[in-house]
């Protein structure tokens, strides 16, 4: 009963806190931030409470309570099984994302600046975005096998279309007057590219690079689940086979939390980079 009351209070408070934030962005400051944090904690408490009540620990296969999930999370972490699996999957993620960026960023810049490149590559990028990548996995598996490199390739293919499109869009959207101004005043093509084209494209490109990470994460999980895996996918499959819902939930939570943290970090890095090179 107490929980329900908290829920009502939290619900009543959340919109107020939001208006506070909206009317006084940044400056209205501390009070708004504290109230926002309070509302967030309260809503999390409500969700956890409902989850706890809804859970059923009488059988292992049933929907686990919060406490059982956390216990599983602790056991899996303490035994080193979960960290090992996460690290194993992250190697796929980071390598695939890095390769994806290494391909997508130059490709996007080329497509954004050259009509020929745009005409030549846009169809492929569009197709990559339009088809559900998951449908291609059996094909990749048939060609490249079941190993690490195939999983990396899946992440690469998830990363490329969004990053390429964002970089190309940002680059191509240079206003005509700025393009003419730079041609009129700058005698070096490289100087124009570095100081005008690149800096203009930066915010859009960085947003695309961050969204690319979100897609890389999805790609990583899909590769883990649909290809033979040695990481998260393997322990997830194992505990599902054991009908241990607590462990399955714990692993899922670990994946979600890691993704949340990675994207948060990417957001911070993005803001920092923009503030540094494009202060206005």
């Amino acid at each position, binding site marked *: 009963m107490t929980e329900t009351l908290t829920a009502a209070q939290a619900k009543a408070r959340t919109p107020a806190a939001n208006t506070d934030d909206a009317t006084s962005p940044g400056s209205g400051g501390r009070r708004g931030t504290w109230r926002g944090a309070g509302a967030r904690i309260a809503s999390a408490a409500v969700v956890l409470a409902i989850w706890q009540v809804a859970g059923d620990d009488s059988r292992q296969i049933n929907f686990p309570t919060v406490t059982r999930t956390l216990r599983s999370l602790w056991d899996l972490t303490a035994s080193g099984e979960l960290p090992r699996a996460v690290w194993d999957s992250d190697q796929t993620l980071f390598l695939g994302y890095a390769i994806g960026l290494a391909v997508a960023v130059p490709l996007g810049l080329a497509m954004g600046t050259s009509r020929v490149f745009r005409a030549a590559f846009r169809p492929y990028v569009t197709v990559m975005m339009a088809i559900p990548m998951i449908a291609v996995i059996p094909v990749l598996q048939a060609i490249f096998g079941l190993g690490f490199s195939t999983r990396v390739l899946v992440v690469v293919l998830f990363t490329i279309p969004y990053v390429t499109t964002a970089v190309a869009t940002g680059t191509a959207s240079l206003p005509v*007057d*700025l393009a*003419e*101004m*730079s*041609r*009129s*005043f*700058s*005698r*070096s093509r490289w*100087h*124009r590219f570095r*100081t*005008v084209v690149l*800096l203009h494209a930066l915010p859009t490109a960085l947003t695309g690079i961050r969204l690319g990470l979100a897609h890389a994460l999805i790609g990583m999980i899909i590769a883990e689940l649909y290809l033979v895996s040695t990481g998260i996918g393997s322990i997830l499959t194992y505990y599902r086979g054991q009908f241990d819902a607590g462990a399955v939930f714990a692993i899922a939570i670990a994946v979600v939390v890691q993704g949340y943290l990675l994207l948060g970090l990417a957001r911070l890095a993005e803001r920092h980079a923009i503030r540094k*090179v*494009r*202060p*206005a």
Partner: protein
Amino acid sequence: MTQPDTIIDIAGLVKRYPTGRGRSTLALDQIDLRARDGEFISLIGPSGCGKTTLLKIINGLVPYDGGSVRVNGKECDGPGPDRAMVFQSFALLPWRTVEGNVMFGLESRGIPSKEAHSIVDHYLAMVGLDAFRDHYPGQLSGGMQQRVGIARALAVDPSILLMDEPFGALDAQTRTLLQSDLERIWSESRKSVVFVTHAMDEAVFLSDRVVILSPRPGRIHEIVEVDLPRPRTDAIRGMPRFTELTQYVWDVLRGMIVREPGLV
């Protein structure tokens, strides 16, 4: 042939714009125009007469299809250090400070940093913006932004200043102030200026000659010599001769617009 003090020599210039399926529209037809060194010329005409196109051709931003355009005795085949453009939209880089924007044109010219900074200081002072050097364009009024655009153009020390309706986006008061400032800057620096405008009084106030272009295709309709004394102070605006010339330019323009009712 060419007089020694001719800085821009345009002869038989033709410009076409492709309109698809191999067809094209004649934008500029048989333009002949010669500018003396240090002269202030305005291009005026109804919209669609190609005055901005002509300016961009002189800058080398737009290629042309016939005739010749010689700047400082050389056939024009691209932007060069002897010409600098001032844009109607100001075309400032929003992520650079006032100082950084004025510096832009100097960066690719291999000028030592110390020298470049003193050049920037000089022109910021000339346009009255030294106190705003660390501001970003977004923090400035339109008039101030265009002062940055003018300082940027002057900083590369061109012999020709090309101005594309530079005051067109400003309110009437700011525009009047900037006209007087431009007259002062011009008389101090003795640059040649080609100035595109659609304001008759502005053209008369600033120019030695006002070139009136007729539309579709753009042709030189008439060149009006402005015999008002220099320096042109605000007192000029009250002179009967100023009013008379402004009225005359308007009469010529109105004749064109009325003849082509589709233009209004």
